[in-house]
């Protein structure tokens, strides 16, 4: 320290360049350096700021000292003090003729302000003047300032001047102008804002040919950004890029661009990144760049970090572009050095690169077992996290347990929310894909909930619930025990907290005590459902279960209505399963509010439960009220009625296709529809057939043209606002009705008869009229597609019919009014249940009827469970060595699973007539040839399954996002050659991530219940069938709607199978290019 001070002193005396002109600033720095405490420092700065304020507002301000003032201001700001009073002064100094002041002012402005600040407006004129200056240094300064200060609204003011500077004789100016344009491009990457129609990339292309390498490298940055947005227009630049890279790596650039003897490594890496973006998924492009990649990789050595950086970037490029075996081999060879290196940095990038290679060639990781395990054991969290990422990518059914254990270990010690979220997501994903057994899945997911419940996606909770439902009684019992223990633990912790605070129980809610011990709401919903459905299997008496359930509210005083509602339903079910009104639970629940008649043991809990019911009866929430009333009404019913309404363990009931067809046709609505039509209502037209109308409405906010007169003069039924809405349909869509209807429903006998048309946005949200309008879409779809109904799972309200306890109408009506669903929501809901049910039914996966040794009972076993038993058995047999387990990458060739022919055949039969409209609908999605529906295709193959499903979807009018996503997916599957058995994830016997499954659930009615249940997680029975719990159904729909359903899962489906196929080394994938 002393020596450094001396150096500064010497500098003061001798060096003319430094420190001379800033005496007061030096004094300030020294004063701060001598401060002993933060308070003292703050005082010094405050004094300084006061002084500066005074000086700067002085009219006789000494302009020549502007620079010093600016620097002192910046220094104060760096130390964390506010100097905003001086921004205006800085703006003034920026127009000072003295470059000395000007530069300091610009620097201060770029530090103080950014492009969002309104003050920038005052600077534009100065900036423009400076960009036109004769002095190239001033131009450079102004251009650099523009990259910080010019925002989207000011781009157009400076753009022409900057473009002019591209032809400046000084390469420095040209370079900075390119960077400024690069910045402008970032402001509006899609060129649809202020830069619409501006040909930025033309300038970049021109500058790529600049004779100065610095300018060229600046244009590379800009082009890279453009290419990241959309590579297609730049494919023709590939030869230029490869030739530049070739020349650079051959050392053709001037020596001054060398960096530690490597030729212009920064340019090389930029080029490699660009090539990766251009070559991704493009075979021809990738082949063109293979030679130069090979050369670059060969010429770089690991003698210096920069060489490693080039190699690393090469490997990343090689793994991004279309796979080339030779390049991959070379890449694998070169990262071996990284992994063996003692440097953590190199090992880190080595692991990252290995993850990239493993994705393409699973065998690559095997030879680096030791290195990988070392990294996993490393004390360095960053490295460990990276390794976990690698493991995540190489997880198979045989190593999942170890990997998930490692991840959980990391999760329990990690505190960064972003990382925790990521790990939770990964664990859920893996568990869903490769779970060796249902019991393992249940414990793992519950553990995840405990450790990081706040990050768990609700869809995972649905899967968990569905999986539990699909298993046998022993698992039910163990799940019940596990959850009761979880609740035990929580309530003891809460009690402990209470004891510590030693205050009245009311204070516990306000004490933050033990936030870590509190279970998140999602898992509580799951627990409620499980204990409600299977609580009677618990080893402890029913009253104890009741006490635990009610005790949830003692811990979570601020529980949401949703949780309370689920709790009520759980109590109802528990009572129904344990002897009804005369059972202990039932007694406790229906005892009068203020007189405790419960058995001695369950007295307290029983009293609590009765309190809860009573409170809910008077709740402000209509839903809670309704549930509480239902609870009471059901418990007063005869035992036979009660057990019929809430049968034990009926969440996986199966219905025959005939039953479903009868239900889905919605016959009881036909009279209603006919009445409406007779009353003058218009035909129903699925939204996607409504021509440009919906599109217009969506894309443009306002319409300026007058509306055309209504096509029909409709006597409005006062009760039905929805019909009134149809009346205002303009004639464009009105005239399109017939044509569109013809496209959509040629097979429907009802073509000639008028159909309902429901305006999706219309509709009242309240009152009894809603009931009628609500039925619009489903009624019309049933009319339109009587055959399709065979596949279409029933609309929820209609589904209640078979086991209707008589409360149908009032319940549907009130449930609609409870949530204020509009008809369009209902449609969306239908789609999310049927088309988009992928989110709920993702694990339903392939149903390996042929391969799976499972009882063909009414339960449909979950895909992740069924697909793996054989392999989990082998895994169990070879457990001894964790390393083996972890890195055993032998891909067990999965049994090709023949799809069950029965239901599919049925469906395809019923759907053949409908194939044309479906084709039309799908064509708009993905131009899939409708030909795959040809009757010649063997029944039961995927092509038909998929297309049948798609047809069903279109009949339902699934215009909403979920449906669309689902449709995409079907197309992907359906357009494979019919003979090819299960594609992608399915064929692998792999868990079939997300969407792979959706056709199944659509096509085969068995699955419907299961997936419906998944959607209806917290609560009573299968969606649409639980006669006793309609609000519950509603909730299920809402949940499904909240989920990112079809679209997301469709995309996942589009991506994942590709990976799996590559992992399995299958080359004949006709969709490789499309999907990667």
């Amino acid at each position, binding site marked *: 320290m002393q020596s450094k001070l001396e*150096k500064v002193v010497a500098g003061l005396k001798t060096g003319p*360049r*430094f*420190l001379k002109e800033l005496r007061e600033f*030096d004094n300030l*720095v020294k004063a701060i350096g001598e401060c002993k405490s933060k308070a003292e420092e703050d005082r010094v700065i405050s004094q300084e700021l006061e002084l500066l304020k005074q000086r700067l507002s002085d009219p006789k301000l000494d302009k020549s000292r502007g620079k010093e003032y600016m620097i002192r201001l*910046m*220094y104060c700001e*760096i130390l*964390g003090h506010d100097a905003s009073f001086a921004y205006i002064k800085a703006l003034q100094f920026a127009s000072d*003729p*003295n*470059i*000395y002041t000007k*530069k300091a002012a610009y*620097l201060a402005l770029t*530090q103080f302000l*950014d492009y*969002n600040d309104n003050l920038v407006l005052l600077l534009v004129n100065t900036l423009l*003047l*400076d960009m*036109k*200056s*004769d*002095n190239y*240094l*001033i131009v450079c300064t102004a251009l*650099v300032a523009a*990259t*910080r200060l010019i925002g989207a609204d000011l781009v157009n003011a400076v753009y022409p001047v900057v473009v002019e500077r591209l032809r400046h004789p000084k390469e420095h100016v040209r370079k*900075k102008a390119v960077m*400024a344009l690069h*910045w402008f491009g970032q402001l509006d990457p899609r060129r649809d804002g202020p830069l619409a129609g501006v040909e930025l990339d033309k300038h970049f292309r021109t500058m790529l040919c600049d004779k100065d*390498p*610095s300018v060229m*490298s*600046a244009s590379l*940055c800009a082009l890279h950004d453009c290419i990241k947005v959309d590579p297609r227009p730049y494919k023709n630049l590939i030869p230029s890029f490869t030739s530049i890279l070739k020349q650079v790596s051959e050392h053709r650039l*001037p020596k*001054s*661009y060398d*960096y530690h003897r490597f030729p212009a*490594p*920064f340019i090389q*890496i930029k080029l490699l990144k660009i090539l990766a973006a251009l070559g991704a998924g493009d075979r021809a492009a990738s082949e063109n760049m293979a030679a130069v990649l090979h050369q670059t990789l060969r010429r770089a050595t690991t003698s210096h*970090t*920069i060489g490693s*950086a080039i190699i*690393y*970037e090469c490997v*990343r490029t090689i793994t991004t572009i279309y796979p080339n075996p030779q390049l991959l081999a070379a890449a694998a060879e070169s990262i071996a050095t990284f992994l063996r290196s003692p440097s*953590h940095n190199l*090992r880190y*990038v080595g692991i990252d690169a290995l993850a990239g290679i493993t994705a393409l060639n699973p065998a690559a990781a095997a030879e680096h077992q030791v290195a990988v395990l070392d990294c996993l054991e490393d*004390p360095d969290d*960053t*490295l460990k*996290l990276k390794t976990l990422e690698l493991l995540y990518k190489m997880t198979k059914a045989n190593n999942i347990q170890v990997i998930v254990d490692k991840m959980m270990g990391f999760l329990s010690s990690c505190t*960064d929310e*972003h990382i925790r979220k990521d790990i939770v997501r990964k664990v859920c994903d893996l568990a869903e894909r490769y779970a060796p057994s249902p019991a393992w899945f249940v414990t793992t997911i519950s553990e995840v909930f405990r450790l990081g419940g706040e990050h768990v996606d609700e869809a995972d909770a649905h899967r968990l619930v569905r999986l539990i439902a699909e298993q046998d009684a022993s698992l039910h019992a163990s799940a019940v025990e596990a959850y009761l223990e979880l609740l035990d633990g929580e309530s003891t912790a809460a009690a402990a907290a209470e004891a510590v605070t030693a205050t009245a129980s009311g204070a516990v809610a306000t004490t933050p005590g033990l936030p870590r011990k509190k279970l998140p709401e999602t898992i509580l919903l799951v627990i409620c459902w499980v204990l409600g459905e299977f609580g009677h299997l618990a080893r402890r008496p029913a009253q104890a279960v009741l006490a635990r359930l009610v005790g949830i509210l003692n811990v979570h005083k601020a529980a949401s209505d949703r949780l309370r509602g689920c709790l009520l339903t759980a109590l109802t079910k528990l009572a129904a399963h344990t002897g009804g009104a005369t059972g202990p639970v039932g007694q406790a629940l229906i005892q009068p509010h203020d007189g405790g008649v419960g058995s001695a043991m369950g007295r307290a809990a029983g009293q609590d439960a009765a309190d809860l019911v009573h409170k809910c009866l008077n709740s402000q929430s209509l839903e809670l009220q309704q549930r509480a009333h239902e609870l009471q009404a059901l418990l007063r019913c005869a035992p036979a009625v009660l057990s019929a309404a809430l049968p034990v363990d009926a969440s996986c009931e199966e219905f025959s296709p005939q039953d479903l067809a009868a239900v889905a046709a919605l016959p009881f609505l036909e009279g209603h529809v006919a009445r409406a039509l007779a009353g003058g209502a218009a035909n129903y037209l699925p939204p996607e057939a409504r021509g440009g109308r919906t599109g217009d409405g969506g894309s443009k906010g306002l319409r300026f043209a007058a509306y055309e007169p209504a096509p029909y003069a409709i006597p409005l039924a006062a009760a039905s606002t929805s019909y009134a809405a149809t009346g205002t349909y303009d004639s464009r869509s009105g005239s399109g009705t017939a044509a569109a209807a013809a496209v959509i429903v040629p097979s429907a006998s009802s073509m000639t008869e008028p159909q309902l048309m429901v305006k999706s946005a219309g509709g009242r949200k309240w009152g009894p009229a809603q009931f009628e309008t609500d039925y619009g879409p489903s009624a019309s779809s049933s009319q339109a597609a009587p055959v399709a109904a065979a596949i279409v799972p029933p609309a929820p309200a209609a589904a209640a019919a078979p086991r209707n306890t008589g409360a149908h109408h009032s319940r549907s009506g009130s449930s609609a009014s409870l949530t204020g669903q509009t008809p369009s929501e209902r449609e969306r809901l239908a789609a999310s249940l049927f088309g988009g049910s992928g989110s709920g039914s993702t694990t339903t996966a392939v149903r390996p009827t042929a391969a799976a040794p499972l009882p063909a009972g009414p339960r449909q076993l979950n895909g992740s469970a069924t697909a793996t038993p054989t392999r989990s058995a082998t895994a169990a047999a070879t457990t001894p060595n964790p390393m083996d387990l972890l890195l055993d990458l032998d891909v067990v060739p999965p049994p090709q699973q023949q799809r069950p022919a029965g239901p599919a055949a049925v469906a395809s039969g019923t759907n053949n007539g409908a194939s044309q409209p479906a084709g039309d609908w799908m064509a708009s999605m993905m131009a899939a040839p409708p030909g795959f529906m040809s009757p010649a295709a063997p029944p039961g193959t995927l092509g038909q399954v998929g297309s049948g499903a798609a047809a069903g979807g279109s009949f339902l009018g699934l215009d909403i996002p979920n449906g669309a996503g689902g449709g995409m997916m079907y197309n992907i599957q359906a357009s494979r050659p019919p003979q090819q058995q299960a594609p992608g994830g399915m064929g692998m016997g792999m868990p079939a991530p997300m969407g792979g499954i959706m056709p199944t659930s659509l096509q085969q009615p068995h699955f419907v219940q299961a997936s419906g249940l998944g959607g209806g997680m917290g609560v009573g029975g299968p969606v649409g069938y639980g006669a006793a719990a309609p609000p519950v159904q509603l909730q299920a729909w809402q949940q499904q709607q909240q989920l990112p359903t079809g679209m997301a899962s469709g995309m996942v489906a589009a991506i994942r199978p590709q990976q799996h196929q590559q992992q399995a080394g299958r080359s004949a994938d006709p969709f490789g290019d499309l999907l990667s």
Partner: protein
Amino acid sequence: MIHFVILMSRQGKVRLAKWYSTYNMKERARVVKEITPMILARPLKLCNFLDWKNIKLIYKRYASLYFVCGVDAGDNELITLEIIHEFVEVLDRYFQNVCELDLIFNFHKAYYILDELLVAGELQEPSKKAIHKHINDQDQLVENAKNGTTEEGQPK
């Protein structure tokens, strides 16, 4: 791209901070407050990368100063390290054996140099020679301006 470059002392005092993405004053203070302990607490032997929120921190220690870059999660970590190193090399050559005090007393010069190296979060000048030439030109001009020969520094 690079979101920010921060130079901090071993005591956690910020010596220089350049923000390429938009952070308002509050966010800047929070970023500094959050990353400082993470970086200062890391043992020497571990790797120079840290995952923080959705960005990656690349840091390197030179004597008593930590150079920290926040980059996109998908960026090449090694090249960012080398950008830091190049910055240090340029500083070193300019200040002739740079030390922390040089950067305290002449932080504006350090900013000028950084502006030559990085623009809008991307490396813009791969050649050290060009940077030096440019900075020296600037110094020359400033020198002239100071000596009263302002003709050169006048805008048109």
